[in-house]
């Protein structure tokens, strides 16, 4: 009984197909081809555009510990001043704009997409959403309160440097020592050495832990030698800046370098 019904269905379908074929053959060929072209062309163009777009990353990610001055830097880049001050961010600040110091330049300048990710440890997962599209990472370090936060900062930096997308795409990292306008701020050389030492220690303890985490983490530097930022595959540089006074020329250079105008 069932096979009967099935046979009937098959026959019906075959009949329908035959009718459809006849209909199609009746339509003049030109019309048929134009109809197909109209449908396929946008799809083709769309795919082409997407292919091109994907190779362009023009996002700069500002990250670092909570309280290091990322939001101030973001607003300095955008408006040239930090207005009435900032508090701990609860959400990322995103914006696509022409850098403030370049507003006065003539000619067509490409806007930059900058994201300021909150540094609070509970909001760490938000960073992972932005890393894949990053063209450059700026890790902001508080040069004033560096020593109490040294371990936390180096752990965060270690996590970033060993993240999958950073290693694979060799995203350049700029370590920005902020708040250098204060008298008791540490120098960038000191900060660099301290960070290298801490990351060296982290290397040994982390690789002991995560025999299984290899999918997510890569090991840094050369085993057996003390870690140095020059050993990283991606470029890691250290510079100074001061968000409050507006001395952010190094940061602007970095941005322009990695997002072509």
């Amino acid at each position, binding site marked *: 009984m069932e096979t009967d019904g099935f046979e009937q269905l098959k026959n019906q379908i075959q009949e329908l197909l035959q009718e459809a074929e006849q209909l199609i053959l009746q339509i003049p060929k030109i019309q048929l081809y134009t109809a197909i072209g109209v449908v396929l062309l946008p799809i083709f163009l769309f795919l082409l555009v997407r292919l091109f777009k994907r190779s362009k990353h023009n996002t700069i990610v500002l990250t670092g510990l909570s309280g290091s001055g990322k939001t101030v830097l973001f607003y300095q880049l955008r408006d040239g001043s930090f207005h*009435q001050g900032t508090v701990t*961010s609860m959400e990322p600040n995103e914006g696509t704009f022409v850098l403030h110091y370049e507003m006065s330049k003539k000619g067509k300048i490409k806007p930059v997409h900058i994201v300021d990710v909150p540094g609070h*440890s509970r909001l760490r997962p938000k960073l992972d959403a932005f890393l894949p599209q990053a063209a450059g990472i700026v890790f902001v370090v508080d040069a004033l309160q560096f020593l109490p936060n040294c371990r936390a900062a180096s752990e965060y930096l270690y996590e970033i440097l060993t993240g999958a997308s950073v290693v694979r795409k060799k995203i350049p990292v700029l370590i920005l020592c902020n708040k250098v306008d204060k008298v008791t701020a540490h120098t960038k050389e000191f900060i660099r050495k301290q960070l290298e030492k801490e990351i060296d220690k*982290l290397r040994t303890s982390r690789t002991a832990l995560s025999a299984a985490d290899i999918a997510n983490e890569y090991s840094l530097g050369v085993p057996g030698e003390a870690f140095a930022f020059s050993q990283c595959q991606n470029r890691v540089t250290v510079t100074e800046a001061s968000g409050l006074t507006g001395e952010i020329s190094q940061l602007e250079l970095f941005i322009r370098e990695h997002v072509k105008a």
Partner: protein
Amino acid sequence: MLEQLLIFTRGGLILWTCKELGNALKGSPIDTLIRSCLLEERSGAASYNYDAPGAAYTLKWTFHNEMGLVFVAVYQRILHLLYVDDLLAMMKQEFLEIYDPKRTVYNDFDDVFRQLRKEAEARAEEMKKSKQVSQLTNSNIGKNQGKVQKSGLRGGNEKKSGRVSGNDDGDGENLKGQKTENGHANGNHIATNKSPSMGIVNRTENGSSDTGAFNVNKLQKLRAKGGKKTDTVVNKSSKEEPKKKMTKKNRVWNDSPEEPKLDFTDPVSENGEENIAVVAADEGESMMDKEEIISSESETEEDEEAEKDGKVETKKKGWFSSMFQSIAGNANLEKADLEPALKALKDRLMTKNVAEEIAEKLCESVAASLEGKKLASFTRISSTVQAAMEEALVRILTPRRSIDILRDVHAAKEQRKPYVVVFVGVNGVGKSTNLAKVAYWLQQHEVNVMMAACDTFRSGAVEQLRTHARRLQIPIFEKGYEKDPAIVAKEAIQEATRNGSDVVLVDTAGRMQDNEPLMRALSKLIYLNNPDLVLFVGEALVGNDAVDQLSKFNQKLADLSTSPNPSLIDGILLTKFDTIDDKVGAALSMVYISGAPVMFVGCGQSYTDLKKLNIKSIVKTLLK
């Protein structure tokens, strides 16, 4: 008077501060508010108290979720300003009219603000006057109403005997006498100040009962007034208790001579190592080092369930208009819309063994963060609420500080002192078992471990640890029974420094959180030895008691410590995880109430059954 008023974006930029109140705030109350309250999912609370040297502030806030704005008012705690909530609400309305996402300067808001403040203050004055007039007339009616409504609200935990006899004689004294004092969750401070009459309290109680949340503070105040008679009784009994329990002498029933001490410790202790076959301590890799395979389940199951709940509950707006709005995406989320979805979510959390209080607070916090937001197109209310709750849960369970113990151990090693870990908890949660598991794991990472048997009360505790130590081949420091645990711990740490151990694991006796003298002894142990890590061991089977346990432990450690910087619970060890199927809510309750991260999870009784908490899978299980 108000100290400061701020409007800032969720991204962190301050948009407006009140220029008239130019007082500089001591400390950093706003940042602390954000870090300890708003980011900890406690934004459903009414206010936040901040203490800095030289100032005590209270902060109140309100959100505008659609535009991502936060309005905060700061004032001195000793002033009880009634108009702050109104003022914040009015400010929100007025500010929205001039708000523009591109603008960053809002100086014209100053005049508007001045007007609003005058209005709010005037309104508060009116309310105060009307309260004082009606208090005299409404005392009887108000009292009964208040009592009846309170007993109606009584949810699971509170063990108060709500004896609401229909008291028509209006004699306040009778009612007060009937209230019996039971152990209350937050520790009784029986305030002895009395306000003129019960009328005001009942009126405010009526008001608060509408919100549906059981306001513990008001209850305490009410009980304080009612507890005057029972007050003295309670004080006497609590004074007697510590005296009784200070020294535990054996009861002598007749004149028989004192029995010899019952100490059946194996005299073969030293030589026992040859007799007992050393079981190979190598049982393979501890599960701490294994990666967990996260099963990706389809989400269609929970979607269907949610849909059923949604359809049953939301028949208010009418099906067609709500469907249309969810497609067009223009609906503004109101509290009434959120309630059914939140209630369903709260029930679901509670079936997963999350403490009732915690589930309630979480739902309030999620509601506060969603109110006023516009629905994205093609989304139902329930799915928006679900997404918000998921984000909140991930945020709570993500540790606030690094939980890399090996790193800390290395750091302590460099300073040439041992890293001390103390295991605390109530009776029978698995402290000794999990101590052995942690020792095994540390041993596998080439760390020299030493155990300290500071459980000098329970029979067999020292033997238990001795057996573990023998199997794992690690040194153990013990002094037998009936010794002061704090001294034993101190000597153990000295021994560890001498023989070069990297880590000292201190086992303590289990104790109930209500037991004052035992908690004092624990606090003394911690204060004397200053451990690097205080691990609270809690079992995953615990239900609503988790809240009580953790809050009391933390409170006692803070109160009874004599140093200005008391060391609180630094981490949680969740045990017996293999016995709960998918009722993983205890993890959430414990983390929420204490703020400490879950460092280990014990999932079995052999040495390898120790693993890390997988946040994503827990959140998924909780919301399934």
